[in-house]
């Protein structure tokens, strides 16, 4: 199986790096996600913002990847924020209690304003 996801990194102001996710987040997305995080961190951003507007599907391995990413971000004293999650995936974040550690917002503007 190959990764079925693309991630692009862009900056938003001085303090934010946004990772635009398009496709599926599963175990095969690990390299793409960690590479995107490395690129986002190289901008010296204090907050990493995940854009889930283009998310097609996420399984439990994908949620595990987000935990790993969160720990990496915490070690660098970065905040992890997210926006664009459908109601269903917001519920998954609540079920898995990721919402207790990742700030979830409806829009990019809201995420940037809160961060």
């Amino acid at each position, binding site marked *: 199986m190959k990764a079925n996801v693309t991630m692009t990194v862009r900056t938003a102001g001085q303090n934010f790096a946004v990772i635009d996710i398009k496709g599926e987040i599963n175990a095969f997305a690990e390299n793409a996600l960690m590479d995107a995080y490395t690129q986002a961190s190289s901008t010296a951003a204090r907050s990493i913002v995940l854009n889930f507007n283009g998310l097609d599907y996420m399984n439990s391995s994908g949620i595990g990847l987000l935990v790993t990413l969160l720990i990496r971000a915490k070690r660098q004293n970065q905040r992890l924020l997210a926006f664009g999650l459908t109601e269903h995936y917001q519920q998954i974040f609540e079920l898995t209690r990721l919402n207790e*550690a990742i700030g979830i917002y409806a829009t990019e503007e809201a995420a940037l304003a809160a961060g």
Partner: protein
Amino acid sequence: MNTPDQDNANQKRSETAWAPPTARMKVGEMTGSARNINVDGRQPMSPLQGFGQMWQKTFKVRLSGVDKSAAEVMQIWKENFPKFQPPENRFYPSMAGIQPGEVLLIEAKVPPFAGLPSILPVVTGVMVLYADDTTFTVMTPEGHPEAGWNTFSVFEEDDVLVAQCQSLCRPNDPLYDFFNRFMGASSQQDKIWIHVLVSLADHFEVKGQVTTDKVLVDPKVQWSQAKNIWHNAAIRTMFYVLGTPLRWLRPKNRPSS
């Protein structure tokens, strides 16, 4: 850009695979005589809410020569999940089996010290967080030895089917952390997953060689979660067992007032 039909199909696929939203675990109708004393009403725990160091452990076995699809192997794994456990680790699935949101009760015995026989009972359980054709994940409740997830999957690697157990967990509280670090509980848990994979391989008459990969994801201990010990299933099971004679003596038919 996806069509609305593709989006709907993805949404439906996801909704059937993930457990329905719940803040507390609910135990359904169970098979066998499992005791439900440490699961019902407990909050699910992710690796973020545990106490000790977070580890990702991956156990894999190659099922060389097995002429089945990944989904067929997973179906057999799900159906025989309790049977593939070591004798001291009994799983009781609900009547519905391994389905998203269902709870599996566990009656395990653990050794008091490394190298001694498994004699201390621990009654706990896990909730099926996610299940599709080739993967399922269970999430632990408050009080379980570990806080986090175990994912079981079957996939193809270099044209060979591979069965994998991957845990992303922390010890749930300081007592479990102590037992993990100094009493061999961690290696005991590793042996369980190795046993499960070897049993699965045996089922397909494959001589399975299990490989292990361990990654320390977070070396930090979360002292803010030391309070988790309140729900410690090992302690609560011990009190439950000690209280058994009192429950026997309690009158069964109390007069109604």
